[in-house]
């Protein structure tokens, strides 16, 4: 959009607007209320509801303002008797086939149709014909569908296509029989639920929240997603100490992600009130014994005595799912209370190489949406950083950006890519080396790509203007990440701004990296300490299997559920989930965002940082927080440069997130890393076999939450129309066709290495069973 201004007259007032602006947006910005159902910012135009009619001079008929681009000298009327008559007539037509069953409809109270008809509807209904009766049904365990309520705005189909790229839901049939549906009647997709979110009526509804309560009965608490590193803003609907649902609806929350959420963020809240939550502190009085419930006083006393015996041999491990406050408090515990340097985070990748060598700033999600060139090296944002993937897709579809993907697997995003360099399996490091060091020709055989492909890539980057964003994640080795983060700056020029975007796995991976600067590696900590304080479970299964934990004298775990780690624990302290604590998460664009307490901690749980400071106080060190999260954050902000000066009030407005200032290192001499990288690349086996076949939608998503799968839905639908509650009391189990829980999924998850990290919670994820 250019910055050129043109003049538009609306209702007699003259406004200067940007050229190319949409008329409906301009009118709404100027507070002229224009009703509309089908219009949705940043989606393809539809103009099917005809509610947004306006009169434009010199045009013969009333025009739909959602399809009109402002032109110079345009004279618009938005309110007149003629327009109102047309809109009221449209309202009447929309209701012609809409059942007036608001009392049983879950959307009642937050329904856009309901609200619009309050303003634009007539009391009398003149249509006496019987309505099209279609039965309610479930499209999947979490998407309930009542086709009769549909007003055919097609927001859902557009969202599915443009945001998710899945095309799983479409409008079938024709004329008055048109219904929103799918082939075969069930939904084969990642179950993101965005169609539910954007639906202006009760056609598509949350099947898990079905008939539970009413929107006005719920307390809406704005918080941050506890699964993906995108830091999506969401609203937790709770009532009576129970989390009922999570939405990102515009009327409740206005975060960086708009109304976008993914399946985990939206539906993965069953763990908060899960019956298997640890209820009280547990002590294992002798090795090999049972965990026995006890009181907080007893547990803290017990822990203190044991830690005093161990002296400074206490190691501290924090999970990257915890809040910044909790991780920072754990670090303070290590440094100030036990005087130990053994502290670390249990992330699947170390982000330090990336952030220590940062040569350009981090990209925000808005910048990704408006970027001109995007280079994705490895990773799979569609499954792990879903919002980033949506922004990439929209940048390509709606913004005309060029997407270049370098990957060993043809992921689904490659359909959008203007260039796809298909490299050999696990040879992304070699590509990083070739990308950083253009002179090196010998490694091409390792990459499995022709020199011309890399030349094309460099040419494309060289010709590009505007923002150029490089994204990469843990498919690259630490050295490769360091080198890439450092050479990114070389591409900057006057017409081109280069930005970096990491793809970490956890909600607070970036924050954990900031909090625990100067940490040791996980294995170092596990080897060097005799006692351990673990906040959240360990993610790496190797650490468990190596028997490190079984050889420790004393292990304290702050956990929500009994996990593989708590099997080794001597004391387990019940921790609070993200919905029960105040705190902050830092997302992959460096935004610090608030996590707010929606419900009281269940049972005897306490926030992780409170537990840690209770132990510290018993051991004689008062952190001075006094159970106040703002105080904890103040201490944190004062001691970490990037967060300097931040306070909770600065983070109050979720629509204006604050970006922390990660120091930009500038050009560094990385010959050591480059050499290490080269050695690693040279050691790679040469192969010509490439991975073919695009992975299915949700193949990682489902492994993370193991909530739904194709077969589970099919199985459910085969038995009529059951409430999917049984599935979602524990969003942990996948089902086979015969209804038995699927076990081999877990084994598969275990073999998938680090993904097991998610199999159990840490400050957020309840996932399934034993390792």
């Amino acid at each position, binding site marked *: 959009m250019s910055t050129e201004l043109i003049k538009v007259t609306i209702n007699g007032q003259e406004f200067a607007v940007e050229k190319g602006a949409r008329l409906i947006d301009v009118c709404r910005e100027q507070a002229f209320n224009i009703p509309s159902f089908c219009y949705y910012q940043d989606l393809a135009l539809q103009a099917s509801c005809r509610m947004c009619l306006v009169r434009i001079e010199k045009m013969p008929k009333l025009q739909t303002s959602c399809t009109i681009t402002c032109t110079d000298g345009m004279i618009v009327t938005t309110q007149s008797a003629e327009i109102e008559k047309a809109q009221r007539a449209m309202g009447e037509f929309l209701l012609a086939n809409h059942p007036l069953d*608001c009392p*049983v409809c879950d959307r009642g109270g937050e329904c856009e149709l309901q609200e619009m008809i309050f303003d634009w509807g007539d009391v009398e209904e003149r249509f006496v014909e019987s309505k099209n009766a279609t039965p309610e049904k479930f499209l999947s365990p979490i998407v309930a569908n009542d086709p009769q309520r549909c007003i055919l705005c097609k927001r859902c189909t557009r969202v599915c296509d443009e945001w998710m790229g899945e095309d799983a839901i479409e409008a079938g049939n024709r004329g008055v029989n048109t219904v929103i549906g799918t082939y075969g009647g069930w939904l084969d997709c990642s179950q993101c639920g965005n169609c539910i979110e954007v639906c202006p009526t009760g056609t598509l509804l949350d099947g898990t929240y079905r008939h539970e*309560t009413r929107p*006005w009965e719920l307390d809406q608490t704005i918080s941050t997603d506890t699964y993906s590193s995108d830091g999506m803003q969401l609203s937790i609907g709770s009532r009576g100490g129970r989390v009922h649902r999570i939405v990102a609806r515009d009327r409740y929350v206005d975060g960086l992600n708009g109304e976008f959420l993914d399946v985990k963020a939206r539906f993965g809240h069953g763990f908060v009130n899960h019956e298997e939550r640890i209820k009280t502190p547990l002590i294992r009085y002798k090795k090999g014994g049972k965990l026995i419930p006890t009181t907080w006083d007893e547990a803290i006393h017990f822990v203190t005595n044991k830690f005093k015996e161990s002296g400074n041999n206490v190691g501290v491990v924090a999970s990257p799912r915890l809040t910044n406050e909790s991780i920072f408090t754990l670090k303070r515990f290590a440094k100030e209370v036990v005087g130990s340097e053994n502290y670390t985070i249990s992330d699947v990748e170390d982000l330090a190489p990336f952030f220590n060598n940062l040569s350009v700033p981090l990209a925000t999600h808005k910048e990704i949406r408006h970027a001109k060139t995007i280079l994705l090296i490895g990773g799979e944002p569609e499954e792990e950083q879903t919002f980033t993937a949506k922004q990439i897709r929209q940048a390509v579809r709606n913004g005309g950006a060029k997407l270049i993907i370098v990957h060993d697997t043809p992921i689904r995003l490659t359909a959008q890519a203007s260039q796809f360099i298909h490299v050999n399996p696990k040879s992304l490091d070699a590509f990083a080396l070739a990308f950083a060091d253009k002179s090196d020709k010998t490694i091409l055989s390792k990459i499995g790509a022709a020199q011309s492909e890399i030349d094309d890539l460099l040419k494309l980057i060289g010709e590009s203007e505007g923002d150029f964003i490089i994204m990469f994640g843990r498919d690259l080795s630490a050295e490769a990440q360091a080198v890439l983060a450092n050479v990114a700056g070389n591409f900057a020029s006057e017409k081109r701004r280069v930005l970096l975007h990491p793809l970490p796995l956890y909600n607070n991976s970036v924050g954990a990296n900031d909090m625990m600067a100067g940490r040791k590696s996980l294995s170092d900590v596990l080897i060097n300490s005799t006692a351990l304080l673990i906040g959240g479970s360990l993610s790496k299964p190797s650490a468990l299997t190596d028997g490190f934990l079984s050889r420790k004298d004393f292990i304290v775990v702050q956990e929500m559920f009994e996990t593989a780690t708590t099997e080794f624990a001597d004391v387990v302290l019940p921790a609070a989930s993200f919905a029960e604590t105040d705190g902050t998460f830092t997302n992959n664009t460096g935004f610090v965002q608030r996590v707010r307490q929606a419900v009281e901690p269940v049972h005897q749980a306490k926030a992780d940082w409170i537990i840690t400071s209770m132990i510290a106080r018993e051991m004689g060190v008062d952190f001075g927080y006094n159970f106040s999260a703002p105080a904890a954050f103040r201490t944190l902000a004062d001691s970490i440069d990037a967060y300097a000066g931040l306070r909770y009030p600065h983070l109050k407005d979720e629509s204006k997130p604050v970006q922390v200032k990660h120091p930009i290192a500038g050009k560094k001499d990385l010959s050591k890393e480059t050499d290490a990288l080269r050695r690693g690349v040279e050691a790679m086996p040469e192969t010509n076999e490439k991975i073919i076949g695009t992975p299915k939608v949700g193949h990682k998503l489902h492994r993370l939450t193991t909530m739904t799968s194709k077969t589970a839905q099919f199985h459910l639908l085969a038995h009529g129309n059951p409430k999917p509650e049984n599935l979602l009391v524990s969003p942990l189990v996948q089902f086979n066709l015969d209804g038995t829980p699927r076990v081999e999924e877990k084994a598969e998850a275990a073999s998938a290495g680090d993904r097991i990290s998610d199999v159990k919670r840490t400050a957020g994820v309840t996932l399934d069973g034993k390792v």
Partner: protein
Amino acid sequence: MSLISDVIQSTKAILLGMKETISQLPKQSWTVQYPDVPITVQPRYRGQHLLHVDEMGKEKCVACYLCAAACPSDCIYIEAETDPRPYEERIGRDERFARVYNIDYGRCIFCGYCVEACPKDAITHGYNFELSVYNRADLLKTKDDLLITKQKQSKNYRVALSSEDVDSEYKEV
């Protein structure tokens, strides 16, 4: 004043009073010998709520929460649930029904807004007015106390006919 005039004055007053009393004796009496004789209440009297059922005995309430939203004293508590069984086996008339429906009569002000709000005519005010209990907690009435099929009706009242004049003291005179 002498003692005699005092006696005369008092006797006079008593006689005057007794005259009025005796003149009322042959007239119709307004007091009711409750509970031996039932009280007559107006047809629109607002007593304890009734939750209604349809002709098949299914609860009419669909747990839309509108009564709870309309309630000025916030005394209605509902928990909704889905009953996906066919109509014949269901508890309620609709798939959606109230698993919990509580009214706290310690707070209810009998304003009748809930009845106004109900889109399904599922809740009305009944005539039961004997709500006193020994324990304050007993003022919380659950669905079992409120359902028309389960609520115990007092024998101590009768509803006036619509043409009947129950308290017309302001009309007469």
